[in-house]
C-alpha cells in the first residue's frame, strides 16, 4: 500500500515534468523536415512562433518566422527593415523579390499593394512548397513565383527590357552565399531593370570582411547608397536608387504619410529615416567583387 502510494507520487512528478517540457518556451516542435537540392529545411514551431530553419546542424539559422496567431506581423527586424525602401518609392507597381524564404516579404507587399505585379524568384522548389504549406504563402493573379536562379531571371528581364519599381535582393541564407549575386556585373544587370526612380533594397552582411567588399562594390556601381543598420539586427540593408538620393526631410514626410499603413505589420517606419546613413564606414581599399573575383564564402570566414 505504501509502495503504491510512492509510485503514484513518482508518476505525478513525471507528468509534471512532461507538462513543463511541453509548455516550456524553449521546446520547439518540428513540423517538417526535408533535404532539398540546396539545403536542409526544417520547420519548427515554438508556441505561436513558427520558423523556417536552414541547415540546423550548422547552428540554427532562422530564415523566417511567423507568429501564427498574428501572421501579418513581421517577426524579424531585418524583414521589417527591407520596407524602408518604400520611403523612397511609396507606391510601387512592379515589384521583384529575389529569395522567397518563408515568403513574409512578398506576402506583406502583396497585402499592402494588391494591385502591384509581384515577381518572386526562388532557386529552390522545396522552399516554395514549404512557404505554401507552412507559412501562408500563396500565388495569385498578381503574384507569381519563378523557380530559377536570380541572376538568370534578372539577365532575361534586362534583355526583354522589363523594369521594376521596387527590387528586393534577399537571396542569402546564412549558410552559403551565391557568389555570382554579389558582383559588379550582377549589379550592372540589376541596374538594367531599374528606372531612374526605382528602388533597390538589398539585405546584406554587416559583419566580417564581406561588409567592406560589398560596400565598395555597391559604391562603384551606384555611387551612393543608404546604409541602414539597427542595433536589433545583425543585417545591413542597402537602399539604392539611380536618381540622386532624397534629402532626409523628404524621407521623414514620406514616413509620416505611410507609417499608418505599416502599423499592422509591426514596421516602425517613423524610426527609420534617422537611421538611413550615407556615411562611409568601410575600408575603401577593399577589393571590388567581380565575376572574376568573388570568393565571398571564403571572405566571410576570415
Amino acid at each position, binding site marked *: 500500500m505504501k509502495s503504491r502510494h510512492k509510485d503514484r507520487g513518482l508518476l505525478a512528478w513525471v507528468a509534471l515534468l512532461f507538462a513543463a517540457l511541453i509548455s516550456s518556451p524553449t521546446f520547439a516542435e518540428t513540423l517538417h523536415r526535408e533535404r532539398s537540392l*540546396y539545403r536542409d529545411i526544417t520547420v519548427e514551431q515554438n508556441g505561436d512562433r513558427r520558423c523556417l530553419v536552414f541547415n540546423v546542424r550548422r547552428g540554427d539559422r532562422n530564415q523566417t518566422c511567423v507568429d501564427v496567431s498574428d501572421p501579418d506581423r513581421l517577426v524579424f527586424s531585418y524583414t521589417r527593415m527591407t520596407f524602408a525602401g518604400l520611403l523612397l518609392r511609396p507606391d510601387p507597381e512592379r515589384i521583384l523579390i529575389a529569395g522567397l524564404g518563408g515568403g513574409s516579404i512578398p506576402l506583406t507587399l502583396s497585402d499592402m499593394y494588391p494591385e502591384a505585379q509581384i515577381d518572386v524568384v526562388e532557386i529552390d522548389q522545396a522552399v516554395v512548397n514549404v512557404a505554401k504549406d507552412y507559412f501562408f504563402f500563396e500565388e495569385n493573379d498578381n503574384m507569381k513565383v519563378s523557380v530559377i*536562379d536570380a541572376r538568370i531571371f534578372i539577365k532575361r528581364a534586362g534583355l526583354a527590357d522589363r523594369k521594376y519599381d521596387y527590387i528586393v535582393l534577399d537571396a542569402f541564407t546564412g549558410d552559403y552565399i551565391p557568389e555570382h549575386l554579389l558582383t559588379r556585373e550582377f549589379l550592372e544587370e540589376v541596374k538594367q531593370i531599374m528606372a531612374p526612380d526605382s528602388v533597390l533594397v538589398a539585405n546584406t552582411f554587416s559583419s566580417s570582411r564581406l561588409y567592406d567588399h560589398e560596400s565598395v562594390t555597391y559604391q562603384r556601381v551606384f555611387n551612393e547608397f543608404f546604409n541602414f543598420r539597427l542595433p536589433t539586427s545583425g543585417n545591413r540593408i542597402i537602399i539604392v536608387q539611380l536618381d540622386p538620393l532624397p534629402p532626409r526631410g523628404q524621407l521623414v514626410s514620406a514616413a509620416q504619410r505611410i507609417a499608418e499603413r505599416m502599423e499592422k505589420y509591426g514596421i516602425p517606419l517613423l524610426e527609420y529615416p534617422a537611421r538611413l546613413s550615407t556615411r562611409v564606414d568601410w575600408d575603401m581599399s577593399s577589393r571590388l567583387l567581380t565575376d572574376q573575383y568573388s570568393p565571398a564564402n571564403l571572405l566571410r570566414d576570415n
Partner: protein
Amino acid sequence: MGKKVNKPQARSLPKNVIIGMAFVSGFCIMTVEMLGARIMSPYFGGSLLVWGSVITIFMLALAFGYLIGGRLSIRNPNAVTYAMFFIAAAVFCLPVILFADFIMEPIFIAVEDPRYGSLLASVILYFVPTSILGMISPYSVRLLVETQEHSGHMAGQLFFVSTLGSAAGTLGTSFYFVLWFEVNQILWGSIVALIAAGCIILLVNYLLNASTAKSRVQRYEKQT
C-alpha cells in the same frame, strides 16, 4: 628479362621528366574544371546543374582524349608530339579567357533551359582543351614503358602522380587561388604552366639528342 617493347626513336625522355609533366597536366585539368562552373555562373546560375554540365563534359572529353592519345602512341611515339599536346592544350584554353562571354551570350539567348545552355557552353569552351590534356596520360605510359612486365607498374606510377596533381589543382584553386587572383589570371597561370611543360620536354629532348649525336660522332671518329 621481359619481352622488349619497341623502343621509341632516339633516346627516350627521362622518367622523372614524364612523371613531372603528368603532375602538371593533372593540376591544370582540375584548375580549369574548378573555374569552369564559376565562369558559367553569370549566364547559367550557380547551382548544381552547372556543376553537372561541367563535370559531364570534362569526363567525356577525358574519355575521348584517352582513346585518341592511346591510338597516337602506337606508331612512332616521340617527345616532340608529346610536347605538342601540352602546347596545343594551352592554345585551346585561350578561348576560355578571350571569348567566354562572346560564346555564352548567344547560347544564353537561344537556349531557355539553363541545363542545356550550360551543357552546350561547356562543350564549346572545355571539350577540346580537356580532351587534348586527356591524351597526355596514355601517351606518357607509352613513353615510359620499356618492357611488358613493368607496363602496369609504370601506368600505376603515372596515374598516381597525375591524380596527385589533380588533387593539388583542385585544392589550390578552390581554397587559395580564387582568394588571391582573378579567374582569368589563374587561367593564364595554367596556360603558362602548360607551355612551360611543353618547352621543357622539347629542351630535354634536344639536349639528349645532341649528346647522343655527339657520342655517335665521337665513336665514328675513333673507328676511322
